């Protein structure tokens, strides 16, 4: 394992931001780190990078403890934590050059420019960062993480605040780094749709605790769906389903909607069943992506 987090806990006074969290990242994989805003993702990443001290637990990267071998480990790690804040009074090139010098490796001007080219900022290298758009700052932040050619790249919410084109650019960059340069990456996000498209494995956390960890393609089973049904009489539908063969899949939900776990091929049957019982269906939505899974987990409606 390239990165191993074991029983990690961080408390701020009586508030526990990260609670007994464990997961591991294999070499060469893109690992998704998912959770709603405030779930404890950034706190965990800060502990991985030794920006804050864990209350309990351990972090090993490349087989070494970050607490004991911080500088040795960070030579091989590139990271952007939350939004990439840079020196606004310097140009893009100057910013990258400053952070390249701090990486403890000899990095030539040509390598700095090549890195800017990789993130599509070579034409704007001489512009001050204060005139950069949010997307350009984000890309420059990623260039800061990449400039010393690290083995492990940690990106905390890399698509935050970006427009659709910016999000696509960052996604393509992550995929390129993973496929072509074989980088190991830990990418955090509160958007499952983003992680779904780039990650091999993932962990979902909520309120600092791990909810689930595994391969994305295993967690996202296309045969299993969750139906969100809105009818003219939801309480009646719940009673009806509870006393039928659908009872096993029925989930707790507010009265405004009915949630049923089932398989994709059973959806028409369920619709037919409701119509036969003279239920007026206003909406029937099938969610078979990881997003449904994530939403069900974080809202307390567990999925089998």
């Amino acid at each position, binding site marked *: 394992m390239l990165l191993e987090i074991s029983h990690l806990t961080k408390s701020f006074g009586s508030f526990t931001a990260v609670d007994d969290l464990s997961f591991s990242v294999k070499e060469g994989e893109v690992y998704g780190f998912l959770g709603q805003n405030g779930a404890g993702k950034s706190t965990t990443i800060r502990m991985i*990078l030794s920006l804050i001290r864990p209350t309990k637990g351990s972090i090993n990267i490349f087989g070494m403890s970050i607490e004991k071998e911080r500088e040795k480990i960070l030579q091989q790690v590139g990271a952007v934590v939350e939004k990439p*804040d840079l020196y*606004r009074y310097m140009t893009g090139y100057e910013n990258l050059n400053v*952070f390249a*010098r*701090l990486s403890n490796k000899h990095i030539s001007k040509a390598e700095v420019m090549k890195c800017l080219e990789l993130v599509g900022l070579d034409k704007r290298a001489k512009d001050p960062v204060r005139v950069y758009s949010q997307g350009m700052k984000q890309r420059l932040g990623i260039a800061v993480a990449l400039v010393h050619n690290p083995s492990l790249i940690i990106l905390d919410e890399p698509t935050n605040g970006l427009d659709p084109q910016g999000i696509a650019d960052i996604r393509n960059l992550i995929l390129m780094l993973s496929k072509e340069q074989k980088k190991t990456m830990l990418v955090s996000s509160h958007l499952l749709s983003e992680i779904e498209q780039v990650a091999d494995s993932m962990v979902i956390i909520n309120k600092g605790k791990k909810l689930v960890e595994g391969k994305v393609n295993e967690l996202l089973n296309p045969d299993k769906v969750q139906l969100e049904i809105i009818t003219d009489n939801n309480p009646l539908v719940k009673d009806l389903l509870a006393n039928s063969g659908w009872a096993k899949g029925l989930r707790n939900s507010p009265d405004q909607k009915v949630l049923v776990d089932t398989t994709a091929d059973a959806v028409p049957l369920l619709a037919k069943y409701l119509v036969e019982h003279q239920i007026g269906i206003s909406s029937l939505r099938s969610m078979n992506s990881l997003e449904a899974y994530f939403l069900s987990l974080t809202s307390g409606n567990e999925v089998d």
Partner: protein
Amino acid sequence: MRLISIVYIELYKIFRKPRTYISFGAIAAIVGLIQLGFYADGESYMKFGMQSLSDSFDVNGNIMNGYLMAFIILQTLLVHVPLLIALVAGDMISGEANQGTLRLLLTKPVSRANLIIGKFIASSIYTIVLLFWMAVWALAISIFIFGADDMLIMKSDMVTQILASDVMWRYVAAFGFAALAMLTVSALSFFLSLFAENSIGPIMATMSIIIVFTILNTLDLPIFNMVKPYLFTSHMLGWKGFFDVTINENNEQIIGSIENLPAVLLSAGVLFLHVIGFLFASILVFRRKDILS
């Protein structure tokens, strides 16, 4: 990572920031104004000042010379320079925290102790460069405008005359001492910047401490008299000691003499200990600090 690389990077950052040049501009403007004022109306000012002496002494030569001007400027400006020092030193950590660059910096393989030492050295170099700038304006340009001659310093109970040939080394020493005093301010402001996430806090706190300590110095109460020797503000004007000369039995100045060298050295020692103390405290605090900005 080598310390020298950190110092280089930090100096690069300091001198790329527009706010750095406010201090240089402010010193040039204030010194220039004082020089202009004395150039235009200095003679009447000096006549008024020398009134009490002219009855007892026959004073010849260029009294309002560059050396005296530098003394007047130093005396006036050194009270205000701490603000200009704090402007940069107080921003060294808090400014990075405010911009969010501190967490990016610390994702790089730089030891926290080295980062603090590097930043401190860089802010100290800025302080020394600022003092050098002040010396150039206050001394070199004053000599260029007003010329050089023996220096007369009027005190409440006496007049000290220092021969022109014996003045320059005293200024070098005085500026060196002033640099140490300003380094103490820089170290204090730097230390305070660890606890804030914008530079206004450390700058205000530094100035408040200096003002409170200076007020304590002026109050002649036994309870305050006990602590006065330990306050750095009690020693910041120690540079004046280089202009107190010893006179021989013929009432002539002894060339190269300092009237109370032990007092000057003690003040320098107290200031130096403060600098070291603030630096070590900064390292200790920063090594354990959670970076939440």
